């Protein structure tokens, strides 16, 4: 680590405080809001589909829930890896300090995982699980039989009741998901001393960029999975999801713009330093990657697809590019918040520098490994609980949806 700090010293500019040489919140801390954002985004997609009973996007409903679960399970890993004492991770739950937003996260996380996501999945899948439990054998059969909890009653009436229950859970789940992710923005937004972070808009901006990234992820996973299964893609579904992506994007862009406009208009202390931060220090990751490639290009592609001038094949290509760029752009946004806020010195007269090691703790490889994990989990979940077998009851329709 210390060699890196010597290297960092060569890049420091102006006057900074001694404790700002090391950027303590590394790439892992940028990854953490990214992953929770994907969770919240995927879940919100699923919930909106359910609450508003959007027919077109139903093939993605369960897929989105499983995606949310897979990413949620990986969400605390960056924090645990960053803190470096996994055996102490639960202490925040055993002796929670009520004034600590971080401890609050432990409980929001537990609530969201155990009460919202697992229950929603459990009751939504109940009918299929019971059917699978009756047919499957071996380990899978054993697993399904445990999941039924010994209740094989899938009469029309009970299923209707289940539907109602899931509806209630979804309605509770929406604010929970918003809270789960809003809190991450809340933590940054509460750092009064840092003008790049301190803003009550922060939680909302985080939330909207979370939705953007979640929709993009679900869209991408849906397109990839139909391709992998050799099925025909449901263009109506993809078009509708892409439409959602566009609308959330526009809201997100509006919020980001408001934030920057507010910074520029109030001209508070540190604004000169922030301007240099944006125009020089973060130029590549903010202006080029986040704004240009991560926001403007996807929006253009999505608008172009909406014009109806393009064939399905071209639109597919547009959607894939737009989602990929979105996922990169939202990560750049997390990076710019987390790393950008730290290289901006509290002196407002200098800038630190961040060097990301390739290997070891807090390194690029570790971050990539954590990022790959949810996809592996998702593959396992999809294998065990195929989300495309039966249309859920609340979508009364004959159409097969794969």
């Amino acid at each position, binding site marked *: 680590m210390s060699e890196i700090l010597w290297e960092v010293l060569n890049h420091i500019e102006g006057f900074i405080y*001694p404790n700002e040489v090391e950027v303590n919140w590394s790439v892992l801390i940028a990854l953490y809001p990214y992953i929770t954002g994907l969770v919240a985004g995927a879940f919100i997609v699923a919930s909106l589909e359910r609450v508003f009973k959007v027919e077109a996007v139903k093939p993605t409903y369960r897929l989105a829930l499983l995606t949310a679960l897979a990413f949620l399970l990986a969400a605390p890993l960056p924090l645990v890896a960053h803190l470096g004492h996994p055996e102490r991770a*639960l*202490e925040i*739950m*055993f*002796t929670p*300090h009520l004034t600590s937003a971080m401890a609050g996260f432990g409980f929001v996380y537990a609530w969201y995982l*155990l009460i919202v996501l697992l*229950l929603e999945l*459990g009751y939504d899948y*109940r009918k299929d699980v019971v059917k699978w439990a009756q047919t499957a054998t071996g380990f899978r059969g054993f697993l399904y039989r445990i999941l039924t*909890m*010994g*209740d094989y*009653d899938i009469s029309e009436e*009970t299923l209707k*009741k289940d539907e109602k229950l899931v509806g209630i859970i979804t309605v509770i789940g929406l604010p929970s998901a918003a809270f789960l992710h809003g809190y991450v923005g809340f933590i940054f937004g509460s750092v009064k001393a840092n003008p790049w972070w301190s803003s009550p808009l922060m939680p909302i901006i985080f939330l909207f960029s979370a939705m953007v990234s979640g929709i993009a992820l679900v869209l991408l996973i849906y397109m990839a999975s139909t391709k992998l299964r050799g099925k025909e893609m449901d263009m109506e579904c993809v078009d509708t999801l892409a439409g959602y992506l566009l609308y959330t994007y526009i809201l997100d862009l509006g919020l980001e713009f408001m934030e920057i406009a507010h910074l520029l208009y109030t001209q508070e202390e540190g604004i000169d330093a922030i301007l240099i931060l944006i125009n020089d220090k973060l130029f590549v990751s903010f202006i080029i990657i986040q704004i240009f490639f991560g926001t403007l290009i996807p929006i253009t592609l999505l608008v172009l697809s909406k014009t109806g001038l393009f064939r399905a094949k071209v639109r597919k290509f547009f959607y894939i590019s737009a989602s990929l760029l979105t996922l990169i752009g939202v990560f750049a946004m997390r990076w710019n918040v987390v790393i950008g806020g730290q290289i901006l010195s509290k002196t407002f007269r200098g800038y630190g520098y961040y060097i990301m090691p390739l290997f070891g703790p807090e390194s690029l490889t570790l971050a990539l490994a954590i990022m790959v994990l949810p996809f592996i989990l998702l593959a396992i979940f999809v294998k065990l609980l195929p989300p495309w077998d039966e249309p859920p009851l609340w979508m009364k329709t004959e159409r097969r949806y794969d």
Partner: protein
Amino acid sequence: MRKIHIRVAMVYITAAILFLIIRSFVVPPTFGEYDWYRGDSVREIMELPPQHANATVCKDCHSERYDLWSGGAHSTVSCESCHGPSYSHTKDPIIVSANVDNSREFCGLCHAQNPSRPADFPQIDMDTHGNGNLCVVCHNPHSPWVFGGE
């Protein structure tokens, strides 16, 4: 109440009870006795042998240094800032001796020119000041404006 609801509720209640049981084992009994930490830790720390004496104790045996020191520019710097924690030395002075470091680098720890120090703190250019001689050749460390060593 349907079977499934009862079973699900039971799983959750079991999990919650399990959590509380584990918690009762993991959280030390004296946690929270004073504040958000293990109360016993205070008593354990109190048991630790003291490391520092203080200047008035040193006076008992080193009264000339003490008198020199208390009237000089270093009177705000405790003896043990320079000689290290010396409680055991005061108990057994012949067997345990206090640290003595008369190098230039040692004085430089506090006096080397450094922009992050308050401007009115006495600082010198380590390269030129004193022509490379040991500081204590000129300054008496116990009262630095007394010149000529000890």
